């Protein structure tokens, strides 16, 4: 990786921009999600000759799809992605007042600001954290994995028990295959399972096929919405003036979004609600939130894109993804031989620099891709939704197959799709399941290595200072949950 100049070669720029347009399309289509967008683009990116182009495609999609989710949230009061749910309040209220274009420009520019702050935080914090993480041994990594999974379960919207069940299922599935000692587990004699469950087909199934099944099961009602009328024309300068007026709301929300994004399992949706609640509490116009206030648009949208950058901090440094989108990106990084951990900056320095540069430039490209998305939304809405879902099915099948040219992966994808649909119907969150699948081996390997080192003694797991700090964090996640839930509920309803 030479520097920024390589990013602007045709071989990188074309797939990058195409990926971002795909992200806009998926994010802006009600019923499709940012997670699905990233899961579907990974097999395509993997096939590109230039790994920088592949990384650019994945990173571009992950940021763009989060913004694009705000478009249907504003126009139709249906979020394109869970991270855009907060945009259904003031954004949609502004749309009803004929100011949809203004709300979406605020969304777009604040997404760029939030994204830049999140990426800058990533660039500044991750290398320092990596130096600190060099002090970690098996004991600390065990607790880090446990913390990541437990926090993702604790902040799950359907309750900690369901979150923990999801984590347990994911971890149990992660034991399939040959373990680090060479023992064969749960393969049913199939060589295809020796490498364990393939992550990308599993994620495509969980987030792609399960959504298709939900669409079919509800007869399309899962994406029903009410459209508002035409928007009055307003200039971009007007939007910038509004952002300047509320610049501290944007900056504070982006910082909060980065911090929340860095918490495992919290993700962009919680970041958006948290920022909305904070803006409401600290604003002089708190009581007018939800009625079409500019601050109510600026806060959540600054936070949700910042959370994407924030989520990459623990993902790169510890291999602990912050949310489902980051989990998929992390899986893709592994495909590119970028192994997360404290030594990532030494082992894969060039690739990490490329990732940082791509993430930064993506924010500026987002202005173009986002503008196209805003303009193309009425066209996207006219597409027959059933046909789009069938097309998603075909791309899910091809994407799963293309990873290893293996039909077995298609079966894996379908099994996870059906399981994902069933579990979501029972309010089991899917993100902790994916995190369990990814972090399960890390937890088991570090537990075994730690026990072997100490001749079977558990004492160091509970007495080393960083272990104690992680255990306290874990306890705080569960004790603090009711308080956080109250804060979030107040943000939504007051």
């Amino acid at each position: 990786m030479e520097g920024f100049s390589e990013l602007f070669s045709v071989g990188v720029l074309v797939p990058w921009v195409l990926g971002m347009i795909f992200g806009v399309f998926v994010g802006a289509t009600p019923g499709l999600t940012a997670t699905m967008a990233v899961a579907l683009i990974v097999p395509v990116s993997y096939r590109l000759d230039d790994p920088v182009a592949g990384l650019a495609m994945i990173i571009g999609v992950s940021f763009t799809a989060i913004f694009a989710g705000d478009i249907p949230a504003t126009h139709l009061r249906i979020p394109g992605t869970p991270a855009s749910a907060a945009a259904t309040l003031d954004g949609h209220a502004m749309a009803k007042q004929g100011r949809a274009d203004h709300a979406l420009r605020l969304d777009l520019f604040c997404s760029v600001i939030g994204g830049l702050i999140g990426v800058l935080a990533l660039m500044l914090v991750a290398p320092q954290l990596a130096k600190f993480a060099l002090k970690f041994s098996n004991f600390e990594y065990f607790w880090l994995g446990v913390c990541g999974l437990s926090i993702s379960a604790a902040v799950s919207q359907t309750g900690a028990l369901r979150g923990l069940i999801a984590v347990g299922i994911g971890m149990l599935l992660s034991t399939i295959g040959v373990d680090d000692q060479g023992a064969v587990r749960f393969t049913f004699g199939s060589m295809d399972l020796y490498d364990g469950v393939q992550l990308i087909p599993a994620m495509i199934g969980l987030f792609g096929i399960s959504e298709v099944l939900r669409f079919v099961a509800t007869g399309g009602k899962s994406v029903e919405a009410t459209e508002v009328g035409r928007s009055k024309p307003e200039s971009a300068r007007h939007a910038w003036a509004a952002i300047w007026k509320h610049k501290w709301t944007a900056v504070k929300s982006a910082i909060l979004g980065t911090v929340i994004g860095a918490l495992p399992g919290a993700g962009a949706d919680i970041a958006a609600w948290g920022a909305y609640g904070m803006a409401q509490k600290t604003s002089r116009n708190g009581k007018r939130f939800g009625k079409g206030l500019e601050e109510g648009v600026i806060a959540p949208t600054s936070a949700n894109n910042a959370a994407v950058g924030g989520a990459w901090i623990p993902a790169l440094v510890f291999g602990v993804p912050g949310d489902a989108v980051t989990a998929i990106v992390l899986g893709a990084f592994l495909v590119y031989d970028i192994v997360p951990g404290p030594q990532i900056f030494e082992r894969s320095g060039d690739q990490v620099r490329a990732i940082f540069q791509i993430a930064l430039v993506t924010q500026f490209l987002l202005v173009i891709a986002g503008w196209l998305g805003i303009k193309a939304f009425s066209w996207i809405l006219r597409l027959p939704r059933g046909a789009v879902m069938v097309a998603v099915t075909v791309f899910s099948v091809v994407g799963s197959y293309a990873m290893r040219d293996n039909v077995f992966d298609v079966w894996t994808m379908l099994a996870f799709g059906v399981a994902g649909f069933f579990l979501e119907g029972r309010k089991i969150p899917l993100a902790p399941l994916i995190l369990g699948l990814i972090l399960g081996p890390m937890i088991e390997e570090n537990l075994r290595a730690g026990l072997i080192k100490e001749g079977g003694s558990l004492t160091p797991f509970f007495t080393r200072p960083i272990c104690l700090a992680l255990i306290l964090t874990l306890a705080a996640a569960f004790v603090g949950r009711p308080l956080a839930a109250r804060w979030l509920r107040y943000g939504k309803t007051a």
Partner: protein
Amino acid sequence: MTDGAQERDEPSLSLGVALVLLSGGALVLSRGIEELGLARKGDPGSKAFPIGLALALLAAGGWLVFRWFAERKKRESGGAFSWDALKDGPAANLSAMVLSLAAYAWLLGPLGFASATLVFCPPWMKRLGSRWWVSVAMTVGLVVAVEVLFAGAFQVRLPEGTTFLAIDRFMVNM
């Protein structure tokens, strides 16, 4: 983002049963895991972790089943989308979709990607609201797009179909 304290505590029989079956199966199968005899002092071995997880899931599943039976009298029906609330139409659609997805995956081998997609997509697009000719046209466009993108640009060897390969071979040998 879903919200609702009421939904949060509602026990689910189907989930409980599924967890019991999953974890019970894992416990039975874990008996067949061979320890390789390399175990060192303090090593819990290859069985311990999956068995521990399976026991935890078994307990969670058992708890959900117990609570479902304990609370069935005071339970109210309704709520948001749920498996049990599906009516005949959607349930039939769902079963048909799952079966046709399985058939599609199975047909990829004998028919190949293009033919299997042409069999799978148009009926579903029609059933989900598109006209016949639109469904067929969109499917053809989809197949061409996938062939160009994956097979053409990325050199993915999409399944060609053993049936057609056999016919080809037969024609060549004739």
